[in-house]
């Protein structure tokens, strides 16, 4: 039997078993919530929940709600015609295994009580208040589309990019397709040392042979093929013991062919003696960085270089002589104060400069407010909430980065989304959400959108886009060739 036949047979059987489990009401090994049981008396009409945002938070919240009650129907609204959020647009092209979660999201979207509605801009095409009238509960899972700025002069010069835009560019996010990053200079400086910074460094220095088999956009591939970047430095405020990246990503840089590490031994003065007391994850990470110090790469020719620069914070982006672009960055030299995880960087009077033609700030994504009716904490850039219940509201919830802040891996968001779903299920059971009134859900929202000239994209429509991208990718030896233009996506979706 061919794998495709096996897989479809398998999914038929799984759907049969899943629907049997729901109808019988069996909660075998639920491991979900010690207090959760199915409803003793079902509500008069289905409970309708609206999820705003079709990324991991939205899908995991939906998945958990669908599993938690047989009476819930979930509609997932997404601004783009395509689902999956940062799994599609954030995860690096050379990390395809991380994108396997798309399989479970696809199962969720195809669930008979779930509907995906793409091409809907919540906050513009429809308000949160209108959604709250049409649904019993609304969940905000729209993530973080902004980025933190360095707040230094020269930040607006050509040659300075946010990591969010650079990643969006090589991953085919439609609004970043015109970025045209200038890769004609030898040195690139990245502010930040988290996994996003490591991703950017790795994409800048990866051999083309590896990248061309991924789903990186053709445009990015061609730009990288012409790149003159030979050296990438990742700058962090604190020291080696505080570096925010994780070991898998660091190991990928250490093992990258045709590259050599470029570290400053002076940055590592007190690190060796601290090693013994570190917990295993931090210890292994630090030992791996220190390994790069002990290898002598100075004599090697024709290799690209990557490294960390520690104890540095940006003060100013320096312009070229004619003022037309960035040509360097001035940095404050820091010292550390405090102990343990609470160590902070405090600037000294010393400064440093690195000459470079490209600066990428990778200091954090940032959520933005979606609708004036929704409370927003501008200091923390999240929707203020208590265990996922949005403060000062009833029937409004949040999950993912917009709830907790823009950190963590997909599994972190997954657990967080399960938590919000648990809160919603508790509120349904306790009566905090009134399900005795039936709500129209999408049967009210979709006609309203149509009146406003907005036509939705269904999951089946996305599958046409998916098929087209896969077909175009196969022709050039890639898993897919992403469509970069929203109009093109819609044209394929609605054929």
């Amino acid at each position, binding site marked *: 039997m061919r794998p495709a036949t*096996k897989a479809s047979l398998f999914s038929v059987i799984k759907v049969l078993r899943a629907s049997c489990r729901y109808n019988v009401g069996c909660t075998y*090994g*639920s491991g*979900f919530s010690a207090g959760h049981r199915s409803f003793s008396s079902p509500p008069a009409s289905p409970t309708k929940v609206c999820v705003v945002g079709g990324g991991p938070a939205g899908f*995991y919240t939906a998945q958990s709600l669908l599993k938690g009650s047989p009476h819930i129907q979930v509609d997932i609204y997404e601004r783009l015609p395509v689902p999956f959020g940062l799994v599609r647009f954030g995860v690096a092209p050379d990390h395809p*295994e991380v994108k396997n*979660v798309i399989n479970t999201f696809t199962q969720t979207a195809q669930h008979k009580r779930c509907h995906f509605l793409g091409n809907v801009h919540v906050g513009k095409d429809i308000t949160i208040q209108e959604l709250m009238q049409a649904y019993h509960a609304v969940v905000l899972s729209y993530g973080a589309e902004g980025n933190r700025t360095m707040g230094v002069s020269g930040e607006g010069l050509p040659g300075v990019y946010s990591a969010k835009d650079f990643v969006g560019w090589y991953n085919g996010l439609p609004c970043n397709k015109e970025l045209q990053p200038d890769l004609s200079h030898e040195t690139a400086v990245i502010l930040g040392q988290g996994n996003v910074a490591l991703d950017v460094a790795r994409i800048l220095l990866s051999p083309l042979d590896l990248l061309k088999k991924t789903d990186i956009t053709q445009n990015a591939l061609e730009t990288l093929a012409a790149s003159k970047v030979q050296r990438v430095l990742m700058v962090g405020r604190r020291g080696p013991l505080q570096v925010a990246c994780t070991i*898998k990503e660091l190991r990928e840089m250490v093992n990258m062919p045709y590259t050599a590490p470029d570290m400053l031994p002076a940055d590592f003065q007190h690190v060796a003696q601290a090693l013994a007391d570190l917990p295993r*994850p931090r210890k292994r990470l630090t030992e791996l960085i220190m390994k790069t110090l002990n290898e002598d790469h100075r004599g090697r020719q024709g290799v690209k270089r990557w490294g960390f620069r520690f104890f540095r914070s940006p003060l100013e982006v320096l312009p070229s002589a004619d003022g037309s672009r960035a040509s360097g960055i001035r940095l404050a030299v820091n010292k550390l104060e405090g102990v343990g995880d609470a160590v902070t960087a405090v600037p000294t009077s010393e400064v440093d400069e690195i000459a470079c033609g490209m600066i990428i700030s990778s200091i954090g994504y940032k959520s933005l407010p979606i609708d004036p009716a929704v409370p927003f904490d501008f200091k923390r850039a999240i929707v203020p909430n208590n265990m996922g219940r949005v403060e000062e509201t009833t029937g409004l919830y949040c999950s993912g980065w917009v709830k907790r802040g823009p950190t963590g*891996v997909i599994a972190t968001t997954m657990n967080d989304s399960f938590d919000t779903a648990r809160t919603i299920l508790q509120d349904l059971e306790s009566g905090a959400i009134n399900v005795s009134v039936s709500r129209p859900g999408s049967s009210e929202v979709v006609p309203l959108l149509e009146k406003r000239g907005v036509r939705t994209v269904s999951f089946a429509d996305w599958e046409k886009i998916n098929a087209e991208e896969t077909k175009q990718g196969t022709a050039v030896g890639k898993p897919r060739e992403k469509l970069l233009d929203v109009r093109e996506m819609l044209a394929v979706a609605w054929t």
Partner: protein
Amino acid sequence: MSLVFAAGRLLSGASRVAWRKTSLCGDPRRTSARQICSRLVTGALWSENKVTVNFINRDGERITVQGSPGESLLDVVVNQDLDFDGFGACEGTLACSTCHLVFEEEVYHNLGPVTDEELDMLDLSYGLTDTSRLGCQICLSKSLDGMTVRVPESVMDIRQSGGSV
């Protein structure tokens, strides 16, 4: 109904093991036709050649199942439809830590070598212990028959802290 379930289990187990290349035990990168065949034969048809595994889930309940030699613990969880929320998100490709399991001490030392790649992901898991491994990397053999593994919490349980974050 039970016939459908039995047939479904047989087929889904075999199909899942056969087409998901990346979680093959001992060979995370390569597929061997002989391995697939021998696994189909041993796993699907010979019920004497089974390994009993006891899982303690996050509610403290014990769930006892039987797997086949050569199956990974992630395969067992998937094939036996064990309901551990979020388990195995990356489908056995060492790109997450959601199949984190905690073993008994004596069993842990008999589990075979751990690669840097597994340790790298294990290091990210919540509640890491000295006898933790990733389920997708542990293959069943007769010597593990009757072992008990615990599915740890994947995040600090807010319920335990009385609801305050």
